[in-house]
């Protein structure tokens, strides 16, 4: 009986410890200054984050086969006039490879597949673009969580 319990525990821990993993590092903050705006003017309607401000890594794949990544946003305090887009600016490093998401894709509140690949990759850089920033937004700090999900096939 004890051996069976140990066996069960071993397989459980083994299975969890080696589950596939997607890791996101970095934060994105857009801060607008009005020092250079003349009276009557609007903000620039589009702006981009740094090309390497956020990185994604895909590791510990269970079968080392094909995978897909979906993205959606979970609004904390957001204004629907603001649209957010994401793209990858490199192919990452490692033995794997990826395709998709080289052009900006709008991030919505529903998951959508943006990137596919095979094998593990580190430091896939993600860049964001905002549109809809305008003077008619109330002064505030707006937040949204961008959630990436890795599916191994």
């Amino acid at each position, binding site marked *: 009986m004890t051996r069976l319990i140990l066996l069960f525990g071993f397989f459980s821990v083994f299975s969890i410890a080696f589950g596939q993993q997607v890791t996101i590092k970095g934060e994105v903050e857009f801060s607008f200054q009005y020092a250079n705006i*003349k009276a009557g003017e609007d903000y620039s309607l589009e702006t981009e984050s740094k090309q390497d401000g956020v990185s994604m890594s895909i590791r510990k794949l269970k079968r080392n086969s094909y995978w897909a990544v979906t993205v959606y946003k979970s609004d904390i305090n957001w204004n629907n006039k603001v649209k957010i887009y994401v793209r990858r600016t490199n192919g990452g490093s490692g033995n794997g490879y990826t395709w998709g998401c080289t052009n900006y894709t709008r991030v919505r509140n529903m998951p959508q597949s943006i990137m596919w690949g095979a094998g593990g990759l580190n430091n896939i850089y993600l860049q964001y673009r905002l549109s809809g920033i305008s*003077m008619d937004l109330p002064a505030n700090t707006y937040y949204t969580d961008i959630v*990436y999900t890795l599916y191994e096939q």
Partner: protein
Amino acid sequence: MKRKLFALAALGVVFAFNANAQDDADDNHTVAISIPEVAILDLEGSTSVSLAVEAPTEAGEAVDFSNAKDSSVWINYSSIVGASETSRTVAAKISNNSVPGGMLLKVTAQSDAGNGDGTMGSSAGQVTLTSSDQTVVSGIGSCYTGDGANNGHNLTYSLELDPTAGSYANIDFDDDVTLTITYTISNN
């Protein structure tokens, strides 16, 4: 009994594998956008306005104020109000010198020209300028009017005879003055 336990343990092992066979993992990060409060205003178009009273052509008539008008100045503004604020106003006052005796200087802000976006202010109608702030545009929310002449609110100045009895006696031929009119955008 042992068989049952073995079967249960085997099921557990299978479950442990299946629980991870859904093959997904996620991670997230936050995107933040900071929008500051903004309240900037300027005047476009003419930088100076000249209003002249015309002398009568017939003896016995009064001086003519009908052409003492000007509509060459525009107010532009960009404004972002906070979520807790209501709105802003634009006020005007004579900040240097005073209107010649027997006369009134009035200003009317027209409706916004419609070239910007957001919650534009509303005109307060015709206002008699004094040395104290008078609201000329109110209810400004988060908006921008567009920059330059023909954007925002056109201002119409008019010089009029003070309707108060006896005012005509205060008109002085030598009473040429240069006034400074100051406009201020502020929170309510």
